[in-house]
């Protein structure tokens, strides 16, 4: 796919890196030639220096052939105008803009309308991170919670702990041990390496990172089966009152008790006016242990380090954990740091640019892909795609799961049946008529039959298998199988 990226900042760079590894043609526009030069040395892409809202620069970058335009410059204005230019002058099929300001988000007609700024999809890394953190606060036992099938199904990563009913048992024993909950374990990582060829005899060991698919409403039972349940998060300390911190505090107000540590005095004043009085704003360094002790960090259910400085976040989390905070989460931009600390003293390392990649990947994947989530910092991937065609034209439709030829290690985890299929008027009308006929979540077993219109959730341990998986969903008139 021919992709044009505007802005070689943190987001632009990680987007480029993630897409370049999949044999896409990528061109990056930025005003800083030095930044482009280093990017060009590291990745197989082309850099064009210049102002990305000027048609001449866009033309030089080959926008006429672009399939996808991603504007992720630092200013909303640039991104909005660039999308408008890309649409009106060059007719680029898909345009994505990174927008920080909440007033220009998805629902704004000005942003999305053809005669407005003509943005097809708004991405906002801060919002994605906030959403991810909220999930982790809701399920404090999990390392990662990802939703599929419009929220009906969840994939959760969790570290198995001795004492959980399933731990130290074989996978084949699951139905007897927790008969009430249908779930499917799609991958197990032991000491950061995947276990290939999961079989009924594979045992879950304490310390394993387990990826489980289950209906969202049964998620608590699933987590309880793998580790002792924590009590829900009631008290929270946030280090860093930046964009993410403020967003999170706004969304969580009234639900939990919050204390926010912020170093900049003027920012503290601003936060205090923006948030209700029961949110305590503290002026001080996020790594000031006296302040943390005074404010009872040891009683916190969760400590979140959300400053823009990786090192500060890591140190603050180490300190908070040592002083007794129950669970700590650090925002870490640099991939190397994130790999280094994840699963050590720091419970969760979250990479902001990563949270947003999945939303973009859904546009890059061929076929009817509804959602993509990148796992383990881009190494693995889970995607949700709609099955089209019939037994004669698609490798998936009308077949039992054990009849589908899957690449090695790839697993079909679950199916969501009965959701409307976009673009198919019949099914939309049907959905209306059925009224209360609820879509069902089917956890995949070897004898489950895939039907046309199903949303299939596929887990792949390596990104290299993406092409093969896409082929499974492609509909071709000539395919005879």
């Amino acid at each position, binding site marked *: 796919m*021919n992709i044009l990226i505007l802005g070689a900042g943190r987001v632009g760079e990680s987007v480029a890196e993630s897409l370049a590894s999949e044999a*896409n*043609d*990528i*061109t990056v526009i930025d005003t800083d*030639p030095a930044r*482009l*030069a280093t990017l*060009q*040395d*590291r*990745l*197989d*892409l*082309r*850099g064009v220096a210049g102002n990305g809202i000027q048609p001449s620069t866009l033309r030089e970058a*080959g926008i006429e052939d672009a399939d996808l335009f991603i504007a992720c410059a630092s200013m909303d204005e640039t991104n909005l105008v660039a999308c408008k230019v890309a649409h009106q002058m060059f007719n680029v099929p898909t345009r994505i803009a990174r927008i920080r300001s909440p007033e220009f988000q998805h629902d704004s007609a000005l942003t999305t309308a053809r005669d407005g700024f003509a943005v097809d999809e708004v991405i906002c890394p801060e919002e994605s991170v906030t959403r991810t953190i909220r999930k982790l606060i809701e399920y404090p036992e999990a390392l990662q919670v990802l939703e599929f099938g419009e929220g009906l199904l969840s994939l959760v990563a969790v570290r198995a702990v001795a004492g959980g009913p399933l731990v130290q048992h074989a996978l084949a024993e699951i139905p007897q041990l927790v008969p009430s909950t249908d779930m499917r374990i799609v991958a197990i990582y032991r000491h950061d390496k995947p276990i290939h060829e999961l079989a009924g005899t594979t045992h879950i060991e304490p310390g394993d990172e387990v990826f489980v698919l289950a209906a969202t409403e049964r998620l608590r039972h699933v987590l309880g089966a793998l580790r002792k349940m924590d009590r829900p998060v009631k008290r929270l300390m946030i280090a860093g009152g930046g964009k993410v911190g403020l967003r999170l505090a706004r969304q969580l107000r009234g639900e939990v008790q919050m204390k926010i540590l912020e170093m900049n005095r003027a920012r503290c004043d601003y936060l205090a006016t923006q948030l209700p009085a029961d949110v305590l704003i503290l002026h001080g360094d996020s790594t000031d242990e006296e302040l943390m002790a005074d404010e009872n960090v040891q009683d916190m259910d969760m400590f979140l380090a959300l400053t823009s400085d990786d090192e500060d976040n890591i140190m603050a989390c180490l300190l908070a954990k040592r002083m007794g905070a129950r669970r700590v989460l650090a925002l870490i931009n640099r991939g190397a740091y994130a790999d280094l600390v994840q699963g050590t003293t720091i419970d969760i390392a979250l990479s902001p640019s990563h949270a947003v990649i999945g939303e973009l990947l859904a546009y890059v994947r061929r076929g009817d892909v509804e959602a993509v989530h990148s796992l383990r910092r881009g190494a693995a991937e889970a995607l949700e795609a709609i099955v089209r065609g019939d037994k004669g034209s698609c490798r998936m439709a009308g077949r039992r799961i054990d009849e589908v030829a899957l690449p090695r290690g790839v697993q079909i985890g679950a199916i969501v049946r009965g959701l409307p299929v976009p673009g198919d008027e019949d099914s939309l009308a049907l959905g209306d008529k059925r009224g209360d006929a609820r879509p069902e979540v089917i956890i995949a077993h070897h004898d489950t039959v895939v039907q046309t219109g199903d949303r299939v959730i596929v887990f792949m341990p390596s990104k290299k298998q993406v092409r093969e998986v896409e082929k499974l969903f492609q509909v071709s008139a000539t395919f005879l199988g």
Partner: protein
Amino acid sequence: MQSVLPVLAILGGILMVFAATMLVPLAFAFLGNDAALPAYDGAILLTMGCGLALFLTCRRFKRELQPRDGFLLVSLVWSVLPAFGALPLMFHMPGLSFTDAYFEAVSGLTTTGSTVLTGLDKLPLSINVWRCFMVLIGGMGILVLAVAILPLLGVGGSQLFKAETPGPMKDQKLTPRIAETARGLWVVYFAIALACFLAYRVAGMGWADAFMHMCSTMGLGGFSSYDASYAQFNSPAIEAVAVVFMLVAGVNFALYFVAWKRRSAWGVLRDIETRMFLLTMLLSVLGIALFLTVHGVYPSFVESLRHAAFNVVSIATTTGFASVDYAQWPVFAPVLMLFLCCFATCAGSTGGGIKMIRALLLVKGARRELKRIVHPRAVVPVTFGNAVVDANVLQSVLAFMLIYGAVMIGATMLLLFSGLDVISAFTAVIASINNTGPGLGQVGPASNYQGLTDFQTWVCTFTMLLGRLELFSILVLFTGSFWRK
């Protein structure tokens, strides 16, 4: 050692590609059923075998190429491939020493075109085809070819690309993916080569001659299948075709690629470097034609113009064809021609030398210094087109000039030390470092490099390699910091 192994795996792959290119002379030998046919069987099998063995033994060490690996690989490829390219010559002519065969192959691949062989007319057709075909491959670059067709080079490909393509500014990519860029350049190159081939045929050459001289012209090499070079044909039409395509090949091929993409040739003609190149050519041809007429070398201005146009363009674009023994002209003319070949061709062309863009930057830099003497506080950026040239680029141009001068002096001293006369020594070095071919004196257009001793041949061989890879890529291997962990 660990760092060399992945490089060797890729070298193996490139050797296999190189073996495949020997199928071209093999086809000629097979069709013409000439005496050199058995030489290719051995050469192809040996090259393929070595390549495969290297590839298979080192394959498991494969990893992303680092910038350092790029330099190492480029130097290895350019020093190892000529040894294999020399095989058909050695198999066919057992009397030929390795030194001479290797010199001939290096001269071909670096598009120099100086030869140690006499009696070219009596060689089997396929041997001459192979000599010329090496010029065609070396012109656009072996590694550019490898990047274009071998899937095993990812990001590392752009490192190789930079280490091989000539010119001071190489950050500008033509397409998002480096393999696409390489493929595009080769397609453009072949398209122009095809046009050149047909033009030669129409102008009156035989099919085989047209093919060989096309290879030699496009690569700006200078190999011919006749000892007499273009004097053999004595045809104004053929000379005109040669002049046109030598000028075409002296321009940056990236410009043709862009023109092809945009369906407009304006970009080529608007380019400052191209304009200066063509202007320099025009002025020197007219000047020398006038000079020859005034000195009465040829009876009419038209005849002077014909010989000046062909020989001046040939030498100045670093090709090295000759249609007359221009060494007999009053000494100003041949010396000026050798001086032109040092800088006339454009970056990104198949020519050698300092390149027009570096020369322009040097002139602009010098003008700035002069201005600063008069106005000490003036801020005078060096610009090229509309863009300000980065200080780093200017510095690397200066460093290039310094090393260029040093290599030239060093190599000349070595040749003088070995007993060569001063004219021959100095012009041999100029002709080698700029990948031109013929010099003056003992190595002039009427004779060749056969009279040199083995030591002198090796000096010229090394100088040709240095010139083709623009000094840095090879010399960096001789620095301690390159090898330090």
